């Protein structure tokens, strides 16, 4: 857009502020993030869910795959038995399953995003920094991938290679890196012409060294925002695969699978749908709040 201009309404009053202050970008961003209530709530709730998913199952009387043979039917919440959220239709503890499912969902989210991050940042930084033929080739490939319906692609991969935990996050990561590559390339292009990069090049820095030492630290902010917004997308995609019956395999579980199971008993036992759905929705909300908050914090003019 055409609105970046020195005469932008706040600009005139504030550009001198940024110059003199001497606080680092990150301190500044952190301070701004803390004033954003939604983002802070998101961060805290997310932390709680993550800790509960990671450690919670250790403290529960039931494990996720253990069947309570005294109650081989859906049981309403019962504190005496230690089924705090009740059980599912074959007598497995719903809380234990929800927390364990969260562990899987979060893990897939984080691992797949990490895969996407690695590919996307590498491709983006190389394309943007090296430029020329390399850039054209890589970006043409990204364009091509964009017109492939990627969800279909993941599904095809899952069908072709079978349901497999590792493959799942590799496949998801392999399709989620496109946007990351575009963003990083754009940032790198603008950075490349900056003086400090010229200086690094003039003083004989090798291309990988310049990319790692000078380009990457400067795209970190944007990348972080994007990571926060990609993780929930991946969680969603995984749950969607599980929902279609192409995800995690029994007795392992994820939020998507629990929701799918719950949906089957919707009419008699809505609890088995609502509880995992609530956990998952809360997580997605938190990630989005946090991502939006981070974006505002790192780019204050965008408010």
């Amino acid at each position, binding site marked *: *857009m*055409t*609105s970046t*201009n020195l*005469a*932008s*309404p706040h600009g005139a009053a504030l550009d001198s502020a940024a110059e003199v202050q001497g606080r680092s970008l990150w301190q500044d961003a952190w301070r701004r993030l803390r004033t954003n209530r939604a983002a802070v709530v998101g961060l805290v709730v997310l932390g709680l869910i993550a800790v509960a998913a990671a450690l919670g199952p250790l403290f529960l009387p039931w494990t996720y795959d253990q069947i309570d043979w005294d109650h081989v039917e859906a049981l309403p919440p019962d504190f005496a038995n230690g089924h705090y959220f009740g059980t599912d239709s074959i007598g497995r503890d719903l809380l234990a399953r929800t927390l364990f499912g969260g562990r899987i969902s979060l893990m897939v989210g984080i691992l797949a995003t990490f895969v996407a991050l690695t590919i996307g940042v590498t491709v983006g930084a190389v394309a943007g920094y090296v430029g020329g033929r390399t850039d054209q080739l890589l970006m043409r490939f990204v*364009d*091509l991938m*964009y*017109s*492939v*319906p990627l*969800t*279909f*692609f993941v*599904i*095809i*991969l*899952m*069908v*072709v*290679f079978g349901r497999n935990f590792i493959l799942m996050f590799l496949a998801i990561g392999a399709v989620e890196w496109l946007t990351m590559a575009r963003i990083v390339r754009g940032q790198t292009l603008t950075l490349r012409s900056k003086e400090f990069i010229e200086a690094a090049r003039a003083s004989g820095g090798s291309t990988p060294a310049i990319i790692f030492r000078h380009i990457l630290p400067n795209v970190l902010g944007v990348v972080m925002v994007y990571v926060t917004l990609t993780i*929930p997308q991946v969680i*969603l995609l995984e*749950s*969607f695969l599980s*929902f*279609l*019956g*192409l995800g995690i395999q029994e007795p392992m579980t994820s939020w*998507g699978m629990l*929701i*799918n199971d*719950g*949906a089957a008993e*919707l*009419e008699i036992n*809505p609890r088995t*749908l609502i509880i995992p*759905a609530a956990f*998952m*929705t809360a997580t*997605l*909300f938190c990630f*989005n*709040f946090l991502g939006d908050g981070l974006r505002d914090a790192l780019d204050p003019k965008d408010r």
Partner: protein
Amino acid sequence: MWSYFARRVVIGIPTLWAVITVCFFLMRLTPGGPFDAEAPVPPEVLANLRARYHLDDPLWRQYVDYIINLLQGDFGPSFKYHDFSITTLIAQGLPVSMQNGAAALLLAILIGVPLGIFAALAQNTRRDYIISAGAMTGIVIPNFIMGQVLILVFGVWLKDSVLHLPAGGWNDGALPNRILPVFCLAVPYIAYLVRITRGSMIEVLRANYVRTARAKGLPFRLVVLRHALKSALMPVVTFLGPATAFLLTGSMVVETIFQIPGIGRYFVQGALNRDYTLVMAVTILSAGLVIVMNLIVDLIYSFLDPRVRYDERAP
């Protein structure tokens, strides 16, 4: 302008070809054939089956045949529904998916864009917060949860009231059967459109030319409609291109939940049944539609921004 358009078409064709080729070889190189899933069949029957589907031809031969058939609009036979050609299946499913998708798209544009503008004009007021929070909810709540909840509420809890809606099924496209799936399809798109429109409108309202327009003494409403709206809609159009393609090719989730015989559901079943020709056909169709929609987006661009129109005159 037209040469530009023609050039984009020329770029689109190899893209589609690449998609077809990748899909084809991915499918054929699979460990385990399409007939593995069924009960063990005697080797001679299997050989028969393979011969019937030309799976015993050399790979390059199969590939060339596939492409030639494709050019004639023939997606080949279904591996699963033995007596159907994929083209027939798609001819049945596509209209259903497209009708629902078009309705959802229309709903999304009619609700999402005005709401987004409305929120942008009231930036940082309570109206804005409520709309933005609503949009966030629409994005965050996954389709399959929303669908289930809608079924629970309208199909189960309200069973005996006037608001009762069928929990699923198509019933040859009777209106009550369409309401929930279309709504469910539209919600995330409404939410995205609100966010995109709001964001871009806020950005455009900060542009210098909007300030100029205000300095002319034009009423604010006119400034928005005449000077800001066109530019603000550009990101919306960009989003709508692929979004339209996805909506028209049917939603796997919504069609599965509501048991609608569209191609989204075919795709899911095809995937689960290893019905490779079906899966490929839907993928190719969808990719083709994305390419076409992106072309249309370019056309709309040139309407919204004269620079696009003129820049392309020069070679």
